[in-house]
């Protein structure tokens, strides 16, 4: 039982990180209607930069600079690739496929730079664990969960209360009407990409910290699990990103923890489980847990 509780708790903490990654994904989708597959490699970029710079800047300093760089990278992707194509009439399907291509390009470059190394994130908590309600929890994960929840809270408030949030939701609801009200769509879009990039960097740094070994050439692939998380929660719901993250984090930890009992299903089930959970949930709710149903007029 205590093993189950420990797995549940660590699964939830992993889930918070997933939720944070998925939230960036959701923000871009909400604001610009683009399904941004390149988000996974921006997560890896963020983690990679933190691993590179923590020696000179310290862990927190490296995260801050990495977040700035990733925000710029996100905005740049929007400016250079998405906006010109959209202006020429590319649909959301074409734009999604462009982001897959960007993900492959950026991911390949990062893999080349990482090589076969395992670059530690430099998180100051190392492999230390803390006893929480009788379960041993890695300190890095605990901090990650706190940071993730705090950031999500801040963004929830920004969404609902700030001018930025209202402008973004207006643009998401009806871009043409928003433009007619004087909202600059290009600014809203670039802002969303930048915010998503910054969130990806922060999440990435924690994603590769203990119990993960560090940035490896598989980090980008593992971060792709955030896509089922976002779809599962409902592509346009920030609350869904968190709940989806928790679900998938727990499912992944449990399948990894009870791997021996599940051996008949083969090894490495925990990497597949996000997609299995996604499949089951979508059968039950096709627009995800919190997604707004496509309203078609009849």
């Amino acid at each position: 039982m205590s093993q189950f509780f420990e797995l549940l708790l660590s699964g939830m903490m992993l889930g918070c990180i997933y939720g944070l990654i998925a939230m960036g994904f959701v923000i871009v989708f909400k604001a610009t209607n683009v399904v941004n597959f390149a988000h996974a490699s921006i997560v890896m970029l963020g983690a990679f930069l933190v691993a590179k710079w923590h020696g000179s800047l310290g862990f927190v300093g490296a995260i801050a600079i990495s977040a700035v760089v990733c925000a710029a990278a996100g905005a740049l992707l929007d400016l250079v690739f998405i906006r010109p194509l959209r202006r020429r009439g590319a649909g959301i399907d074409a734009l999604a496929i462009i982001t897959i291509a960007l993900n492959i390009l950026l991911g390949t470059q990062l893999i080349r730079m990482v090589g076969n190394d395992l670059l530690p994130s430099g998180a100051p908590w190392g492999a230390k664990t803390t006893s929480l309600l009788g379960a041993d929890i890695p300190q890095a994960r605990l901090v990650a969960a706190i940071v993730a929840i705090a950031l999500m809270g801040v963004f929830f408030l920004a969404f609902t209360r700030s001018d930025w949030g209202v402008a973004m939701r207006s643009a998401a609801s009806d871009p043409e009407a928003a433009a007619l009200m004087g909202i600059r769509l290009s600014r809203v879009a670039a802002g969303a990409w930048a915010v998503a990039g910054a969130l990806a960097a922060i999440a990435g740094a924690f994603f590769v910290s203990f119990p993960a070994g560090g940035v490896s050439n598989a980090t980008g692939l593992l971060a792709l699990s955030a896509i089922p998380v976002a779809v599962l929660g409902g592509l346009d719901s920030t609350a869904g990103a968190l709940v989806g993250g928790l679900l998938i984090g727990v499912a992944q930890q449990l399948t990894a923890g009870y791997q021996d009992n599940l051996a008949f299903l083969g090894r490495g089930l925990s990497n597949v489980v996000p997609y299995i959970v996604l499949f089951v949930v979508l059968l039950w709710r096709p627009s995800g847990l919190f997604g707004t149903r496509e309203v078609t007029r009849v």
Partner: protein
Amino acid sequence: MDEVAEQSGRRRPRGDEPGGAFLAVTDLNVSYAGVRALRDVSLSVGEGEIVAVLGNNGAGKSTLLRAISGTLPLQRGTVDSGSIRLLGKRVVGLDPAGVVRMGVVQVPEGRRIFGDLTVEENLRAGTFGRVGRKGVGAAYERVFALFPRLRERRRQRAVLLSGGEQQMLAIGRALMSDPKILLLDEPSLGLSPQLVDRIGDIVRQINADGTAVVLVEQNAAMALKIAHHAVVLEVGSVALEGPARELSATSEVRERYLGIAGEDEPRTITAEPIKRVTSGKRSPRPLGIQDLTVRFGGLLALSAVTLHVEPGSTHAIIGPNGAGKSTLLNVLTGVYVSSSGSVDYGGSELTRMRPPQIAGLGISRTFQNLALSPTSTVRENLLLGRHRLSKAGFVSAGLRLPAARRELAEQTRIVDGIGELWGLGEVIDAPVGALPYGVRKRAEVARALCAEPSLLLLDEPVAGMNADESAEMARSIVQTREALGISIVLVEHDMPFVMGLADRVTVLDFGKVIADGAPRDVQRDREVLRAYLGFAEGSHESGEEEPPVSAPDAAQEKGETP
């Protein structure tokens, strides 16, 4: 009325006198992908004026507004030549946000409110076009004073508002940036007559507060009543212009845009007989609806509705916004599930069937907001309507086997014939998305007819059309019924249109049948006058009253633009 007369009688400065006009559009040419949409259009709006822009669907009214508001690029349109000046400054080339900051704000057609934002957030979004934050509080006060309903419902999500309230929110949202010029695109579209009058009063009041207004309207009667000056567009050019009072007196405008053809002429529609294109036997059966009730959560959308449609008759269902008309059609086609009651079509119980099975019985419908694929041609859309009658399977059609090819040729012949009858012959190869709204509406009906129905359900076939176009639609509907002998159920807003067309009329209000009978009798029913036109006992004060919107209608009204 006096002040209107006085202002419209005054000599106005024209666009070519610099500094005279507030907004001056000069020799504007606009095209979409090489197709010319506006030709040398000039328009000038003086300070504090209301200028009405009238014309048929596809005449270029919306294009003109788009050119002014800078949203043409979003529709892939370009300004080829000509100029638009606001207080002498060029507007062409600015993005929409730039135009808003110069003081020109457009209320888009179909309201386009932000449905999942609250009323207050919608208004807040309207403030982002202001140049400074000063005066925001006063702007809220002005809008709430103009529309007290919005203050009451400020915390609600906008999608839950009724159609009329949504229009008020759309106007209020635009006023939040204190525009010098307000561009209104079809503000009365889809509203009941009493609300149309109210919108007219509101526009007048906004104008009296010092905002110039450009009013694009399908409802020429309302627009000409409140405007100082009017311009009539025809096929992209200015056909007529002048003071609104003078224009509304010309016989051309009276006949074509006001639908006044001599009052004593009875409004029965006669039509030339037409040849049948298809040979399929149509045997319309009686349709009986008994105690039909539909609930959405706690909301009663239809309550014990009972009505009978005789085979081969035209039966109209009318009622104000949110009365349950579209809900009824959706139950008939199996899209909504009824809570209780029965719908019998010649012995088949429709409430237990799924949409494809119902279509299989020969019941076919059109959609209020058009359900055509915009990138496919008219012919392809019509062929889709014959899907039920096609025999070629996936494999034989995919491999283009001879049998499938023969069938396609035959289907194409039928479809072209039906298209011809509905005046679509010339545009049969054009993508639907490029056609004017009125033509698309006709294509929508033609598509439904391609399924060779014995019962045709029409959902607001003349919504958004002017008098001219609805008369043509009425003629085509009569022709079709005469030739095919099918039953037609017609859901409509436009009472006069229905009266000349239907054999029997059922009036819904709040989901209940409040009258049922011959058009002549229903028209005089006191209950109907009160509910639908809002003026029994001569009480104009009840203009505030609006039925609560039913859940499905609210969702429908969200995306009114096709």
